[in-house]
């Protein structure tokens, strides 16, 4: 049986039917990790031993009937900005390299309560600041479709790991597009839920008013199931929201007749790669053929989302990251003279250039004399952007567009010009500013063979509409995986199966 080919839900079903053991699935994923990590570097930490112990525990619970969820026993990965008791949480930063939390993020806890086996922590842009996973202190992650390219970011490790079959699904976090953009670059599906849907407790904060955890999977169905599992009203997170519906999988129907889909003309201006544009418009056509009403409209204010976003996110980050000071945890400089020197040296040596850049900008825009001109102005812009979306959702159920202006750039191309990198977030950041749900679904490849993603944006709490449209679209095409991942899994299969017959199944 080709375990690694399975989607998370397919594997879950087979585990339930005792066709595949949890340990067997875990070992298969670990073998793929071992084989591909030297090339891809999707993970910061792989918890092999812990995963195998967990696999046994989960198997016992499944056997006793204590775990019956659709994803029980399915091995998964989490982004390294989510705390997991007993495993290092680094945010891909030197400043946290030795930090081992004594608590587990609420979303991760919910996953584990449902029988997830955690394989490890995935690589990311340092503190989620970046769009390429190149700002990681532990080396960049490479795109499984073409290792000369970036996987996108900041959840590049999670998305690349799913694409490379190094896990069956993963959690990412999205502050300005950090799930949707790398999902697009890696040819996987990712959802950024409505703000407040998934608890932020245990997620190391970047921009608290924008951060949201979400699923990354091989298809919409898997993502809907994972989202259903990790969403909750959490009293530990004051911004958590008591929603009316959590049953996201109930929206997995192909019927989209009469659904109104709006295409913002502003998302198709200059700067958008023509191959991306064509693939996205082609997808819109597919949906139209399935009965959706598709039309173009003017969303407006699109160009103001990035400046507003960078003011707000940097300001919040400058404050959120001030706790990294070399006193309670993390890195402390070896040589310093007195308290302030200890602070400055530890932080300057511990943070990478992109993080420092944003902390400097954030501190500046909040500083005396600039608060009104920058921070307050950005909060007002945010209000206007929210209003523009409110107007759009009076007319449309779902907004459709690209997730990024291009496919994955080559490694090293983006970091020289930060502003240019920031501009790549143009289609994603406004969703975070307005607290909306967004989803990326693969919709083709460019001539270089790099994946293209389709972004669907819904009104607040309208994940189900996204899931419906995404699922309907997905039925029109089959899931494609990077050749590298498939090749490696194939080559391991024999070895693995040998192991299995030797060990025997309980």
């Amino acid at each position, binding site marked *: 049986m080709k375990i690694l080919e399975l989607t998370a839900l397919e594997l879950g079903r087979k585990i339930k039917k005792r066709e595949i053991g949890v340990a067997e699935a875990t070992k298969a994923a670990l073998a793929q990790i071992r084989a591909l990590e030297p090339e891809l570097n999707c993970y910061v930490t792989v918890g092999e031993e812990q995963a195998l112990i967990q696999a046994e525990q989960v198997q016992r619970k499944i056997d006793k009937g204590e775990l019956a969820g659709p994803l029980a026993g399915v091995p998964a990965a989490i982004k390294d900005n989510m*705390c997991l008791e007993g495993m290092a949480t680094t945010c891909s930063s030197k400043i946290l390299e030795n*930090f081992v*939390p004594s608590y587990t*993020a609420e979303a991760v806890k919910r996953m584990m309560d449902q029988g997830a086996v955690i394989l490890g922590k995935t690589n990311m842009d340092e503190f989620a600041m970046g769009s390429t996973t190149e700002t990681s202190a532990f080396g960049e992650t490479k795109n499984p479709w073409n290792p000369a390219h970036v996987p996108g970011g900041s959840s590049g490790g999670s998305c690349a790991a799913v694409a490379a079959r190094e896990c069956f699904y993963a959690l990412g976090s999205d502050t300005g597009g950090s799930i949707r953009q790398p999902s697009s670059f890696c040819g996987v599906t990712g959802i950024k839920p409505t703000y407040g849907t998934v608890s932020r*407790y245990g997620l190391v*904060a970047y921009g608290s008013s924008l951060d949201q955890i979400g699923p990354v999977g091989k298809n919409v169905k898997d993502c809907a199931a994972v989202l259903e599992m990790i969403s909750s009203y959490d009293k530990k997170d*004051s*911004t958590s929201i008591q929603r009316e519906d959590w049953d996201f999988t109930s929206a997995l129907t192909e019927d989209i007749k009469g659904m109104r889909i709006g295409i913002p003309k502003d998302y198709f201006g200059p700067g958008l790669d023509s191959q991306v544009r064509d693939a996205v418009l082609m997808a819109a056509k597919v949906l139209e053929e399935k009965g959706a009403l598709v039309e173009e409209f003017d969303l407006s204010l699109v160009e103001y989302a990035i400046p507003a976003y960078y003011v707000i996110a940097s300001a919040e980050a400058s404050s959120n990251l001030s706790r990294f000071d070399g006193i309670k*945890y993390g890195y402390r400089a070896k040589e310093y003279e007195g308290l302030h020197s200890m602070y400055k040296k530890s932080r300057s040596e511990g943070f990478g250039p992109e993080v420092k850049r944003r902390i400097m900008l954030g501190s500046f825009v909040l500083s005396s004399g600039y*608060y009104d001109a920058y921070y307050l102005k950005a909060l007002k812009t945010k209000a206007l952007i929210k209003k523009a979306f409110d107007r759009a959702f009076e007319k449309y159920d779902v907004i459709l567009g690209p997730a990024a202006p291009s496919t994955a750039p080559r490694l090293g191309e983006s970091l020289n010009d930060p502003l240019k990198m920031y501009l790549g977030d143009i289609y994603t950041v406004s969703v975070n500013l307005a607290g909306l749900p967004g989803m990326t679904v693969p919709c083709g490849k460019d001539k270089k063979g790099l994946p293209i993603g389709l972004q669907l944006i819904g009104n607040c709490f309208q994940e189900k509409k996204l899931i419906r449209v995404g699922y309907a679209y997905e039925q029109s095409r089959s899931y494609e995986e990077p050749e590298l991942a498939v090749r490696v899994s194939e080559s391991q299969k024999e070895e693995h199966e040998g192991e299995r017959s030797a060990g025997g199944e309980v």
Partner: protein
Amino acid sequence: MSKQYETVIGLEVHVELATKTKIFCGCSTEFGGAPNTHTCPVCTGMPGSLPVLNRQVVEYALAVGLAANCEIHQYCKFDRKNYFYPDNPQNYQISQLYLPICHDGWVEIETAAGNKRIGIHEIHMEEDAGKLIHDEWEDCSLVDYNRSGVPLIEIVSEPDMRSADEVIAYLEKLRMMIQYLGASDCKLQEGSMRADVNLSVREVGAKEFGTRTEMKNLNSFKAIARAIEGEKNRQIELLEDGKKVVQETRRWDDNKESSHAMRSKEDAKDYRYFPDPDLPPVVIDDAWIARVRERQPELQTEKLARYQKEYGLPRYDAHILTSSKHLADLFEETVKLCGQPKEVSNWLMTDAMRLLKEKGQEPEQISMDPRHLADLVKMVGENVINRTIARDVFEAVFTENVNPKEYVESKGLTVVRDEGALQSVIEEILEKNPQSVADYKAGKQKAMGFVVGQTMRAMKGKADPAVVNQLVKELLEQR
């Protein structure tokens, strides 16, 4: 000094609220405890931890604000105040800048110069910092986060005070008010009430305020008074010398009775406040305000009036009794048990105050059980013991909290009214003092007083004086 100066003072008073748990987490606020034993990821600023507001903090802040005649911001928010210091684990303090819960109130103070209203600019909620212990041996500092996250309110006055007397009266007023509300114990020594003094001087008649300084580290009313005096003189001297007062924060050293500027190149004082994205706003509707008002206990001014009206106490006595919530509670509970408010008041006003003075204690430190005091009052009323004895019993009740009934019984202090027993004692005294009998017979009334005195002494005060008087007279007549 040729010119006349006026001192202008405003206060920032921090009060630790009497909640059981911290403002944003479920850690205990209990005082003491080994370092860092009352901490969790939230109050030590661990990555990924999030704050959740303690409802009781809002209740207490509202109660204090309403008692101080404040307007309420019915939509209020928390802001982050960003600065690096090891006692501040997140390196930002969650506080309120833009929309503090209470604003524009006042309290009335009473000084020798008369009554005066002191304006309250605002009251806001915030979290306390941890404690730094300086380790001389290793030349380092140690951080204990047990106090980190303990809820505080900061009460910011208008610059309405003009003397140390007014400042002390204002602080006493706040302290009493807050204690009455049960919102804090307000102990300056333990730091549950702390005051920073903003002070400037100007020439009498000047319209503009002078440049002010902020004085920190004031741990007692006496220190506050001394610091005000010291800072006033320092500023006047500067002005007299033609120098300028620099706006700065200064630290008072009460041992040296002087202050020094707390300045550092690394201390930019630019707090970059912004709304805390982790905490949604607090909306206080009219119903909530009404609920808090309804629950508001009787405050000192109201009690003061009631004691005069209901119990017929003189204003002075009522003032003393209500000057401490603890004392007033003791008074009322005792009266509830034994009636006789004037009698109870007398005990507290005279004997209790005398004993406090002797011991150098505050009224808050009285540990007497109201049931014991009530029993004592009853025993005196029913003539079980006489007043002289009662004062000794009171002292025992006050200092050792003894049960007065048992105490009187075990020491045999009950009044002797057995006429037969008394008669033999008096007869004996008359036998020993024939001169007194003679004097009495000769019409010298004073002689009778002497015999009564002797009798009382012989009875060790336990005799009922009225009975003794009657008997002595009878027996003298019989001779």
